[in-house]
């Protein structure tokens, strides 16, 4: 029994509720959410230290022992992910100060952010399948709100399809839980694992396993990622960085838990499915990344590739590859958040989101440029940086299991990651600045003011938002014209945001330099994945 286990869920929840009372006071909201985020991070680190020193930490809610109540379980894997998620989200939070705009901040941006964190941390720590569903819903509903907050046309379109897909997958999740409950009669994960092993996995249980695979793949963007590239394009960069760093990772975590703890029994069926899906994800993600000409879209397809990469480790499922999964997940959270933050700054700096309209940014924003190069190399897995260790372990696992085709595909996809990101770097930062960007911004401003005019013309009831939109458009248009008039004048990237990205970049580098330590931690975390009996005993002994 250890109350620390629930703090990563409880602290963001309390912060969010507190934040609801200060709708208009932006400065106070920022302070509270920063303090809440730091407190959560401290709790996570404490939990991590404790799990590292004295094994799996357990909290049975309300004192009801394992199969009957809801247990929160922190093994080293979950503790590592919670810590990484909270710290990475902290950077996204710091980046959102001053980039999301005061309209969003006044409309509960920070509470939604904290609710999302509560959902994410809860999903990592829970030991109950239905509670996992509830935590998923907490994080998904917050993500709907964060995605649509601001209400531009693009966001509305993206949210409509994103919500539809997620409601559908949640519905399937409930159906899968119903089937599993019908077969086993329990919902506690450790108890489920025991019951499934007793019954002997096969037949109906394999069908349920594949249903879970479909559900979590929809959430994680494994093969069923068709919704992801356009959905993650719509929100402001701080939000898409948060999504990129956390949301798909929660789905992957659920996949890893499901197929190492609940359904490890018949890898000939389930893991072959995962292997095919992983291979297809890497190939299709690579195709998408190569074909895109838009900064955010290229980065979005890179998320897809890395999801495929992790799934490859899960499909192989030996000790080395599971260690690689843990290592790579930790790296990927930090690296993807960094890439998206830098991508957002790049777009703001260039005033355009198409690659063809960018160029010559290195003279105006040298720090941004070199940090982007570091992030790109880290994502591709160049040796001194963080992506290398995880990829090495994954490939080692793949070779040990003699799945040469998948290993080749994942090596090839790393090459594509390197190519697409470095191409992004070269096009955006080198060469001459084309005449495009300023005009693009003006065109955008014209479009916005047209839209505003249209909104004005329409006699709808939401009089509250109209002046805002119009005012925005006017401000935007004047800003754009000013920058058009003096196109050579550099537009300042905020120093504070550069520092935020710089610290995150430093973490990515340190994760690579300290690969030895990271690999040890990953090995420790992979122990419960390789041998779930440790987890089961810890949960059911009391």
């Amino acid at each position, binding site marked *: 029994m250890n109350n620390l286990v629930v703090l990563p869920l409880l602290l963001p929840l309390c912060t969010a509720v507190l934040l609801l009372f200060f709708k208009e006071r932006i400065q106070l909201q920022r302070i509270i959410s920063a303090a809440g985020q730091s407190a959560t991070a401290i709790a996570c680190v404490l939990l991590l230290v404790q799990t590292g020193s004295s094994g799996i930490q357990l909290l049975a809610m309300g004192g009801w022992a394992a199969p009957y109540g809801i247990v929160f379980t922190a093994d080293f894997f979950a503790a590592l992910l919670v810590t990484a998620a909270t710290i990475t989200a902290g950077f996204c939070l710091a980046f959102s100060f001053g980039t999301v705009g005061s309209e969003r901040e006044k409309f509960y941006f920070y509470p939604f952010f904290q609710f999302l964190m509560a959902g994410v941390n809860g999903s990592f720590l829970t030991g109950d399948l*239905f509670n996992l*569903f*509830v935590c998923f*819903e907490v994080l998904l*509903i917050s993500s*709907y*709100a964060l995605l*649509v907050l601001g*209400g531009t*046309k*693009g966001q*509305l*379109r993206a*949210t*409509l399809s994103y*919500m*539809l897909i997620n*409601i*559908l997958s*949640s*519905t*399937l999740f*409930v*159906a899968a*839980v*119903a*089937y599993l*409950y*019908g077969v086993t009669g329990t*919902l506690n994960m450790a108890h489920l694992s025991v019951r499934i092993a007793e019954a002997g996995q096969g037949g109906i249980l394999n069908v349920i396993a594949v249903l879970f695979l479909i559900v979590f793949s929809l959430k994680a963007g494994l093969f069923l990622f068709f919704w992801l590239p*356009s959905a993650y394009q719509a929100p402001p960069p701080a939000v898409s960085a948060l999504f990129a760093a956390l949301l798909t990772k929660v789905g992957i975590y659920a996949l890893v838990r499901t197929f190492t703890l609940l359904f490890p029994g018949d890898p000939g069926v389930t893991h072959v499915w995962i292997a095919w899906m992983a291979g297809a994800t890497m190939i299709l993600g690579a195709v998408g990344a190569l074909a895109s000409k838009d900064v955010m879209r290229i980065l979005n397809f890179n998320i897809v590739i890395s999801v495929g990469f992790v799934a490859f480790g899960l499909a192989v499922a030996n000790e080395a590859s599971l260690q690689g999964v843990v290592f790579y997940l930790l790296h990927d959270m930090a690296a993807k958040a960094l890439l998206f933050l830098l991508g957002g700054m790049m777009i703001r700096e260039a005033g355009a989101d198409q690659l063809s309209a960018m160029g010559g940014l290195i003279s105006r924003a040298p720090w941004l440029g070199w940090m982007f190069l570091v992030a790109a190399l880290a994502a591709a897995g160049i040796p001194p940086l963080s992506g290398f260790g995880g990829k090495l372990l994954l490939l080692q696992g793949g070779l040990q299991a003699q799945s040469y085709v998948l290993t080749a595909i994942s090596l090839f996809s790393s090459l594509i990651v390197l190519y697409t990101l470095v191409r992004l770097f070269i096009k955006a930062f080198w060469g001459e600045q084309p005449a495009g960007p300023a005009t693009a911004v003006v065109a955008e401003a014209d479009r916005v003011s047209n839209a505003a005019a249209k*909104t004005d013309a*329409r006699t*709808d009831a*939401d009089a509250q938002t109209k002046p805002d939109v119009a005012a925005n458009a006017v401000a935007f248009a004047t800003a754009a014209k000013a920058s058009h008039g003096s196109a050579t004048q550099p537009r300042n990237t905020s120093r504070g945001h550069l520092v935020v990205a710089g610290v995150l970049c430093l973490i990515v580098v340190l994760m690579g330099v300290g690969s030895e330590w990271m690999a040890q931690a990953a090995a420790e975390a992979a122990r419960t994945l390789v041998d779930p009996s440790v987890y089961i005993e810890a949960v059911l002994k009391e």
Partner: protein
Amino acid sequence: MELLLALTIGILFAVGVYMILARSLLRVILGLSLLTHSVHLLLLTMSGLKAGAPPLLGEKADSYVDPLPQALILTSIVISFGVTSLYFVLAYKSYQKLGTDDTEQMRREADE
């Protein structure tokens, strides 16, 4: 009894999926709520439909029905209620802003 309910759930699911594939956004939402109805019935069915008293200890019966799925369904109902109301408002807002409730037309505008 289980067979009858399984058939009903199957029909609900089929109708729900058919409606989700429609072009009108309103049909999509109705399809989603049919789907949630069907999985809630599925939760109830999968726990077994044997006769027993309602799960109230005051009934002092020999056997009760399984109380757990009822709690799960109750949780799931409020969640899907919240999500559905959000989706309705989103659809309303989209109709105002995009001027259409045809999902095909929405996508066509995005391509421009």
